[in-house]
């Protein structure tokens, strides 16, 4: 028999899952990415560096901040520009806001319905209005970080080459700090909610990749590392993360020399557990997750642990900004020239690489973006193939539900994945 899940819902973007099984034997399992390709890298060709970040932000609405930052950092590297400590901290805050926002959206809007057995969170408007209101309150606070520092949550406007064009107001930052502290009871209730869910039993150790930032939980860094050994400069990403086309997908897949690998919250948590904030480690204990976890369904728990970590970090970050003051010059000067640069950030869904080459007039010659979901696709397929034989006795409906939950646990973002891919000039 053939099972097809068309237009899998509650993920970003479009995918089908096709499973072909015959008498309990799995014949074929493939994740078809059917989102239309957009050829972003080719469209960037010939554009001036000052236009590149605003255009690539449009690769993805949910992680437009990560795309903007990775793009700016790669361009800055190419041009030999370095933002000051204040602006680097502001960029960290901007990333925190996006990750918290994206994680909350996934946890409440996409995962909660799975675990409560309903088609949408909006079904709870009457029966559990407080839960819906809490989800919205938390999301608002996260978006407030993005608005205050980035100008708006989707496609930020203030971040530019060299730093920022506008700084947040100190009074607004104090207010945001209060909002973040006031969100703690809502976060406690969220932890309680997720601690009560029965997560499916399944375990498959993958290779886990994330940025490496000594002494810190990974976010922005010029090195990345693997659970299986290597630690390398991000400019070496093509040596370690090989992309390939499959016959059934508009997104490229990726593998290391050992095979499929995993990026995102679970990879970060596993590789950097001791560097989580004290509060986040407590929450991890409550949710029964630690560095040993290899259950991909537990990515949800990892996301929630990260929400706590980043909220705590954001509060400390604001304190630091207020302590050192927001004074000092803005990056008004537009650099000139060209060059090559590669940068990476931890986007909500994991490692995001941008790499550019500009000619001496600052016009883009080639661009390459490697997006988290594309790196996870092979891992999702491997998981699906591994879990399927254990589910074949389940009724169709339940089987479908379990598989969809597994795909959603990765929070795949397919709008992003269909524009990775490089222009090869060689």
């Amino acid at each position, binding site marked *: 028999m053939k099972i097809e899940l068309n237009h899998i819902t509650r993920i970003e973007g479009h995918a089908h899952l096709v499973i072909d099984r015959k008498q309990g034997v799995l014949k074929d399992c493939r994740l078809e990415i059917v989102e239309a390709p957009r*050829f972003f890298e080719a469209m960037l060709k010939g554009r001036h560096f000052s236009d590149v970040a605003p255009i690539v932000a*449009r690769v993805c609405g949910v992680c437009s901040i990560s795309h903007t930052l990775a793009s700016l950092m790669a361009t800055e590297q190419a041009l030999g520009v370095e933002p000051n400590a204040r602006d680097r901290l502001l960029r960290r805050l901007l990333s925190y806001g996006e990750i918290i926002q994206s994680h909350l959206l996934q946890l409440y809007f996409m995962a909660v319905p799975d675990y409560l057995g309903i088609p949408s969170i909006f079904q709870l408007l009457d029966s559990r209005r407080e839960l819906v209101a809490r989800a919205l309150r938390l999301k608002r606070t996260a978006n407030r970080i993005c608005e205050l520092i980035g100008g708006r949550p*989707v496609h930020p406007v203030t971040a530019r080459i060299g730093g920022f064009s506008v700084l947040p107001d100190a009074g607004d930052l104090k207010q945001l700090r209060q909002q973040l502290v006031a969100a703690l009871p809502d976060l406690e209730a969220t932890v309680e909610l997720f601690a009560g869910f029965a997560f499916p039993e399944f375990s498959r150790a993958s290779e886990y990749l994330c940025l490496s930032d000594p002494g810190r939980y990974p976010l922005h860094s010029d090195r990345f590392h693997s659970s299986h050994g290597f630690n390398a400069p991000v400019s070496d990403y093509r040596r370690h993360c090989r992309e390939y086309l499959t016959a059934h997908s508009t997104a490229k897949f990726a593998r290391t020399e050992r095979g499929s690998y995993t990026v995102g919250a679970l990879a970060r948590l596993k590789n950097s557990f001791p560097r989580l904030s004290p509060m986040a480690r407590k929450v991890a204990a409550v949710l029964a997750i630690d560095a040993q976890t290899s259950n991909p369904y537990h990515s949800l728990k990892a996301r929630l642990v990260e929400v706590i970590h980043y909220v705590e970090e954001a509060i400390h970050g604001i304190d630091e900004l207020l302590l050192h003051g927001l004074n000092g010059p803005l990056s008004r000067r537009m650099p000139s020239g060209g060059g090559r640069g590669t940068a990476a950030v931890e986007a909500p869904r994991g490692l995001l690489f941008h790499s550019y080459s500009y000619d001496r007039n600052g016009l883009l010659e080639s661009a390459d973006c490697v997006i988290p979901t594309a790196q996870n696709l092979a891992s999702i397929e491997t998981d699906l193939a591994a879990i399927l034989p254990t589910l074949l006795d389940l009724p169709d409906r339940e089987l479908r539900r379990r598989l969809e939950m597994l795909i959603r646990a990765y929070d795949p973002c397919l709008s992003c994945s269909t524009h990775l891919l490089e222009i090869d000039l060689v």
Partner: protein
Amino acid sequence: MKTRIGFFDFTGCEGCQLTVLNLEQELLELLELVEIVAFREVMSEPSGALDIAFVEGSICRREDRERLRSIRRRSAVLVALGACADNGGVNALGSDRGPELLRQQVYASDLAQLQTDPPQPLSAVVPVDYRVPGCPIDGPEFLAILQALLLKRQPALPDFAVCVECKLAEYPCRFDHGEICLGPVTRAGCRAICIDGGDRCRGCRGLIESPRTTPYHRILEEHGLSVDDILDQYRTFNLGEAKP
């Protein structure tokens, strides 16, 4: 009975639907008035007839055209949500090169699933009743348009330029910083958010109806820009007029 609304998306970044979900403070109240019956990002329910369909993204494949036509058939009102649906958006940036060349540059492959047509706005395929411009859309403007539709009024977009909003807010003119700003000829309604953020206007909301009848287009001419220069700048978010 509540008004049944649905959200659909084609080729785009889903940032406009996210902007709707980001209306956290209004969403609960809004859901008292409308029933959201389709929103693939956050729900898994099939849907029947709709009062209003909001459609994000541009159209670049045969199956997209068929799906859009079927959404049109079962929707009383169809609204283009955001620049990609409204005027091709950033997807159309490569429209001067054609999908064949872009595909070879990016994928170097002829696999069937990579075949696409040049991205088109919804109106190239079906009649579009109303539109919410911008990349991304402006949340409050979306609410105002939805409110008008719920009250059975004609939603109206501002027919003046971003320059007006910018000057009222007393933001420094980008031309004084030596940048090219499309505020003089771009439709207002965004509260000049990019200029407030220290950037310039890149024209994501499209041209006002008759740019030459307003005084602002002269700002562009005073800075030595020709109509061609301006249209070239417009290509970032708007499908080129004469091109396929």
